[in-house]
C-alpha cells in the first residue's frame, strides 16, 4: 500500500490553474522538499492535502484512505499535521495553550465530565500538559512557555507552530516555509530539528522551502513545481544539475550561459 500518494491533482481559481496535473509519491520516513518559484502552487498543494481546498480533479490517498472523502477537521486524525506559511497561531493564547491545542484529537472526556473537572478530565488534562512540556523541551521553548503569541518574535512563532503540529504526534508533517523570518542560527537549529523529528519521532516530512541551503541539507528527495506543474523530481544533486529547474528559477538565457 502506498504511503501518501497524490495523483493528477488539478485545482484552478478563476482562470488561473494553481496546480496542474501534479502527481507525487511520498515514501514513509522520507524528507521530501517541494520547491519552485513564487506562485508555483506549493502552498496550494498543501492546502489540498489538508482539505482546506477541494481540488477540481485528482486524488490524494493516505495509506489507502481517500482524503477527498474527508473534511478538513478529520485530516489531523489520520496523523497529518501542518504549519502555515503566514503563521496561523492563536494570538491571544500562550505558547503552551497553543501547543495543547495540538492535543485536541486525543481528548476523550466529554463536556459534562469537564464541567465537573474531576477524575478523568483532570487526569487527561495533566497527561496532555506532560506531552506539551515534552514538545516545549524538544524545541527549547521553555523561556517562552507562558508568553502570549502576540509578543513573540516571528522566528519563535514559527517554532510554536511547529510545536503545535508535533503535539499531534503526526505521521506526516507538512512544513510550509518554516525557515522564513528565522535568523541564520535559527535556521541551522531548524535543520537539526527536522532531522531529529524524522530520526527520533519517525515522522515523514514534506517541506515547502525557499532556503536552498536548508533544502539541500536535509532532503532525501526534491520535487520542483513551476506554474503548477511538476517539472522535476529527484535527489538534491540531480535537481541542482537539472536544466529545467535552472530555467524555471533563472530564466531561459541564463540557463544557456550556465550550461
Amino acid at each position, binding site marked *: 500500500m502506498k504511503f501518501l500518494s497524490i495523483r493528477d491533482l488539478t485545482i484552478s481559481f478563476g482562470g488561473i490553474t494553481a496546480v496542474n496535473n501534479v502527481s507525487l509519491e511520498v515514501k514513509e520516513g522520507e524528507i521530501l522538499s517541494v520547491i519552485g518559484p513564487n506562485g508555483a502552487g506549493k502552498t496550494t498543494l498543501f492546502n489540498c492535502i*489538508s482539505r*482546506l481546498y477541494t481540488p477540481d480533479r485528482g486524488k490524494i490517498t493516505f495509506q489507502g484512505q481517500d482524503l477527498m472523502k474527508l*473534511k*478538513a*477537521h*478529520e*485530516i*489531523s*486524525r489520520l496523523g497529518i*499535521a*501542518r504549519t*502555515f506559511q503566514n503563521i*496561523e*497561531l*492563536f*494570538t*491571544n*493564547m500562550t505558547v*503552551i*495553550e497553543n501547543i*495543547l*491545542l*495540538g*492535543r*485536541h*484529537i486525543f*481528548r476523550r*472526556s466529554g*463536556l459534562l465530565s*469537564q*464541567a*465537573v*473537572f474531576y477524575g478523568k*478530565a*483532570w487526569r*487527561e*488534562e*495533566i497527561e*496532555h*500538559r*506532560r506531552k506539551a*512540556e515534552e514538545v516545549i523541551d524538544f524545541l527549547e521553548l521553555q523561556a517562552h512557555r507562558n508568553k502570549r503569541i502576540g509578543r513573540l518574535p516571528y522566528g519563535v512563532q514559527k517554532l510554536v507552530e511547529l510545536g*503545535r503540529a508535533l503535539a*499531534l504526534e503526526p505521521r506526516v508533517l507538512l512544513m510550509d516555509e518554516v525557515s522564513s523570518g528565522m535568523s541564520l542560527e535559527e535556521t541551522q537549529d531548524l535543520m537539526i530539528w527536522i532531522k531529529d523529528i524524522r530520526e527520533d519521532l519517525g515522522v515523514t516530512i514534506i517541506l515547502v522551502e525557499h532556503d536552498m541551503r536548508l533544502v539541500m541539507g536535509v532532503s532525501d528527495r526534491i520535487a520542483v513545481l513551476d506554474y503548477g506543474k511538476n517539472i522535476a523530481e529527484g535527489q538534491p544533486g540531480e535537481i541542482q544539475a537539472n536544466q529545467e529547474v535552472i530555467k524555471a528559477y533563472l530564466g531561459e538565457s541564463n540557463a544557456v550561459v550556465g550550461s
Partner: protein
Amino acid sequence: MNIVDFRESYSQDFRIFDKFYKWGWIAFLVAGIVVLSQTSGDYGAYLLNLIFINIIAAVGLNILTGFTGLISLGHAAFMAIGAYTSSILTVKLGVPFWLALPASGALTGLIGFVVGLPSLRLTGIYLALATMAFGFVTDEIILQWQSLTRGADGFAAIPPIIFGMTFDSYKKYFFITFISLAILLFVAKNMTRGSFGRTLMAIRDSETAAETMGVNLGWYKALAFTVSAIYAGLAGSLYAHFILFVSVDNFTLLHSIGFIVMVVVGGLGSITGSVMGAIFITILPEIISFTKDYLPSAFKTASSLQAAVYGIILMLFVIYQPAGFYGLWVKIKNWWRTFPL
C-alpha cells in the same frame, strides 16, 4: 509577596487558585454576602438577587462572545424562553420548581443549539443581525401564542416551593440564586480552564488553524451557543420566580445589549470579568436614579438616559480599557506584586 512563582506540578497551571489559601478569601466573601443579604433590608436583597441573575446571564454570554468570538444580540430572548418555560411549567402543569429550573435550561439549550447552527457560516455583523431577528421572532411568538403565554398581559409566576419551604421573600430567594450562581460559576470555570475553553478560544483566534488541528468548527460553535443559552435560560427561570411576573417588556433588545455591555466592560474571555461587569451594570441604573435629582432638568426627563449611559460606557471601555475591569484588575495586581520595581 513572592515575585517569582515556582510550580511543582502540572495541575498548578490550571487550578482555579494557584495557592490553596486563596479559597479562604472566597469563604470570607461568601460569609460576607450572606450576612449582607439578610441584614441590608428588602432593597439590598432585591439588588443582590438581580446581580446574581445578571452574572449568570453575562457569564453565559461571555462563553459565546468572549471565548468563542461569536456575538449574540438575542440573549434576552433566550432568557425569556427560560422564564416563560419555568413559569408555565410551575403554574399550568404544577411541576415543582427544582425540576422546572433545569428543564427550562435544557429547553433553552436545545433552542440555542438550533440557533447556533447557522453560525458556522454567519459571523460578525451578520450573526448579530440573525440573533437580533431571533429575539424579535421570539417576542412575537410569545405575544401571539396567547393560550400558552397570555400574550401582552404577561404571565404571573409563583414563588418556588422546595421541601415544603416557600421562598416568597427576596431574603429567602437569595439562597436559591446564590447557590445556583455558585454552581454555575464553578461549572463555567471548569469548562473554560480545560480543553473545551481552549478549543473555543482557538476558534476565536484562528478558524483555519483550529480546523487543521481537528476541531469540528460547526459542532463546537453550536455547542458554545448551547452552553450559552442554557445559562441564559437558567437566568430567565430564576428571574421569573424572583420578579413573579414575566412579560416581553422584561426581555427586549436593550436587555440583550445590556448583557453585551456587561461582558465587554467586565473583560472579554474572563469569567471573573463577567462577574465584575454584571455587578457594575446592574448597580448602574440604581446610581443613575439616585443622581437624577442632581442632574440638569433636560437630562432628568430624558427617558432613554439609561441607554445613553450604556452607550457612553461601552465606548469609553472599548477605547481606553479594552480588556475591561478584569484587565485593570490584573494590571493593579501585578503592580502591587512587583511593588518597588
